C-alpha cells in the first residue's frame, strides 16, 4: 500500500462520526451472577504503571469458596446490562453487558495500522508462541527492532496438543504490531502480527503523525 492509496480524510471521518468501540462483556466462567453496574454507569479499565490497579467491578460470579470478581478491562460507559440474568446461575460465555468505549488516539492509530501493515495471519485456529530465538530478540531489543525474513522460524503453533514450528513466508520487514497473546487461541485467518517492510516505515510514521495532529 502506498501513500496515495490511503484516503486519510475518509478514514478519519469514519472515526469522527462514531468515535466509540462497543465491547461485549461475557461471563468468563459459570456461577451465580451478581451485576455490580447499571446502564449509564461510567467504568474504568486497569490503571497504574504495571496496570496493577483493577478496573471497575462489573460483576461477580459466586462459586464454592471461589468468588470470581470480573473488572472492566477498558474505560467507557455501560451501554446495556442483561438484568434478566441477575441472581441466576449462568454458563460460561453468556453475554452480560456492553461497554461503550471512547477511542483514544493510540487505538485509532492501531486500528489504521492494522489496515496498512502486512498482516501475518493464523494458519489454523491454535495457540501461538514466538519461537525461542525470536522471543529472546524481542525481549532484548523490543519488537519494532526485530526484522524477519522468509525461512525464519517465527512461531510455535500449539494445536491439538502438538507443537509445530511455523516458518515465515512473507516479505521481509520488522514486526511492528503484535495482536496475539501467548497461549490464547487465535481463530484461523486472524492477524497474529503486522509486518512493516523497511521502505514503508516513513509511511507508517506519517500516519501516526497525522492522526496525532488531527485527532482531538
Amino acid at each position, binding site marked *: 500500500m502506498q501513500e496515495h492509496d490511503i484516503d486519510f480524510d475518509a478514514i478519519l471521518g469514519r472515526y469522527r462520526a462514531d468515535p466509540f468501540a462497543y465491547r461485549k462483556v461475557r461471563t468468563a466462567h*459459570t456461577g451465580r451472577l451478581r451485576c455490580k453496574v447499571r446502564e449509564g454507569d461510567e467504568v474504568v479499565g486497569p490503571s497504574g504503571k504495571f496496570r496493577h490497579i483493577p478496573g471497575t467491578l462489573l460483576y461477580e460470579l459466586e462459586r*464454592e469458596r471461589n468468588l470470581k470478581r470480573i473488572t472492566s478491562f477498558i474505560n467507557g460507559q455501560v451501554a446495556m446490562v442483561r438484568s434478566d440474568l441477575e441472581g441466576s446461575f449462568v454458563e460460561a460465555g453468556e453475554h452480560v453487558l456492553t461497554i461503550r468505549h471512547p477511542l483514544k488516539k493510540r487505538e485509532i492509530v492501531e486500528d489504521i495500522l492494522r489496515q496498512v501493515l502486512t498482516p501475518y495471519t493464523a494458519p*489454523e485456529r491454535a495457540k501461538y508462541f514466538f519461537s525461542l530465538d525470536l522471543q529472546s530478540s524481542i525481549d532484548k531489543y523490543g519488537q519494532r527492532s526485530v526484522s524477519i525474513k522468509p525461512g525464519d522460524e517465527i512461531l510455535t503453533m500449539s494445536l491439538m496438543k502438538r507443537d509445530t514450528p511455523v516458518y515465515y513466508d512473507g516479505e521481509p520487514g520488522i514486526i511492528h504490531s503484535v495482536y496475539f497473546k501467548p497461549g490464547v487461541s487465535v481463530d484461523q485467518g486472524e492477524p497474529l502480527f503486522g509486518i512493516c517492510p523497511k521502505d514503508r516505515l516513513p509511511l507508517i510514521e506519517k500516519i501516526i503523525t497525522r492522526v496525532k495532529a488531527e485527532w482531538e
Partner: protein
Amino acid sequence: MKDKVLIANRGEIALRIMRACRDLGLDYVVVYTEADEQSEHVQRNIDSESNQRRAWRVASYTDPNDILAVADHTKCTAIHPGYGFFSEDYRFARRVTVRDQPLTFIGPKWEVIKDLGDKINTKRVANQLGIPTIPGTDGPIYNEIDAEEISRRLLEDQAERGISQPSVLVKAAAGGGGMGIEEVHEIEQFRRVYRQVQNYAKRQFGDPGVLIEQCLRDYNHLEVQLLCSRHGERVHFGTRNCTIQSTGRQKRLEAAPGFDTSCFPYEFDAPAVLDEIVENSLKLASHVRYDNVGTWEWIVSRSGQPYLLEVNTRIQVENDVSARISYLNGQHPNLIREQIRLALGDKLGYSQSDIEFRGTSIELRIVAEDPQRGFAPWIGTISQFSFPRHEWSAVYTHVPTDRPYAIPSDYDPNLALALVWGDSMAEAKQRARRFLDEMVIEGHNSSGAPINTNLQYLADNMDRLLTF
C-alpha cells in the same frame, strides 16, 4: 438419595459414560465448551423446553471451579472424569472428595492416583517389589548438564552392550498419553531436544521436569486391564497389545489378547510372559491398595523381557478391546459401568474364576489426520459420516451422522472408535479390513481440500498387529 453423575469430559467417552449411567439407572449432567457445541454428547442433552437440563457450558474441561459449580448447581453426587483432563489429577480428585459437600470421584482414591499417577514414584515402588522397569532416571531432572550426563552414560552403556542403534527418550515427567516424548540418537542433539521437551512440558503440564530413559527397539507395548474394588477385591480382564502407534506415540490399532501365537513365531514363551505381567500388575495393585479401574502398561522386548512402563489410573480409550474377549456370566462386561458401580462403593460380586476369555478383538482408532505428513491433524468440516453395522462390530463416536460437523481445533481430531471381534485373530483382521472398506467419511477444509483420514493406514498396518 440416588446418585447423579457429572460427566467432565467430551466426545465418545462422554457418550459411553452417559450410556453406562442410564444402564445403572443413574441421572447425569454433561459439561461442554463453546467449541464442542455441535458434538453429539451436547446435542443429545440440550433441550430448551425441559426443566431437566443436562448440558452446561463451561469455560474449559480443565476448570475445576466451573465443573464443581455446575455439579453443585445441578445437585450431582459424583464426577466422572473420563480419560485425559482431570482423570489422573490427584489434586482434583482430592478437592472433589474433601470438601464441605463431598462428591464421589469416579476413579481411584486420590492417594492412589498420587502414588501411581506419578511415573517416577511408580518406578520406585515397582523396583522395591522387584518388578522390572526400563533403565533410566527415577526422578525428574531440571538441570540440562545433569540430564546430558545421564543420557551420555545411557548411550555409552547401550553401545558397550552391542546395541546397534543406541538412543534415549527424553520425556516430560508430568506428561502422559504419549505426549512430550522425543528420541535422541547422538549426544550432540541432546541439548536441543532437551530444551524442546522442557518447553513443551512447561507449557502443557506446568512442570519443566524431564525423565531420561533408554529407548527400547523392537518391542511390543502391552497393557493389563485391572478392576479393583474398595473392599480389597481384584480381578483382571486380560492383556491387550497397543504397539501400533502414530509418530506422536498415539495408539492407533489395538488387539486383545496381548500375544497370539497364530500371528507370529515368538522367540519366547508368550503365554508365560502374559501370565508374568498380569501377576506383577496384580502384585503392584495389591501393594498400593488399588481401588478402581486401571491399566498397567508394559514393554516386552523381542527376547521376551517385560518392563513396567507406567500405570494409568483411569479408564482407557481402549478398555472395550479387553471387554470384548472377556465373558462374565456369558456377557461381555461393560468396564465403564463397573467402574462407576465400584466407585459408588459397591462390591465386585465375582472373582477371577467367574471371568472367561474367548476369541480376539481389534480396536481401530479413526482419526482425521494425514499419516503421510507425520500424522498432521486435519481440521475442517465433515459432510458425510457413516459406518457399517454388523453383529461382530461396535462403533463409539461423537460425530453426528445426520448433519455436517466441524472438527474443533481445540481438541484431538479423533472421529470414532471401532471394535471388531472374531473367533481367531485372522477372522478379526479380515472383518476389520471389511469394516474399513465400508466406512464413508467425506469432508473439506476451509480451502476446499478433501479430508485426510487414517483409514488406509489402519488397513495397511493390520498385519503388523501382535508381531515384532
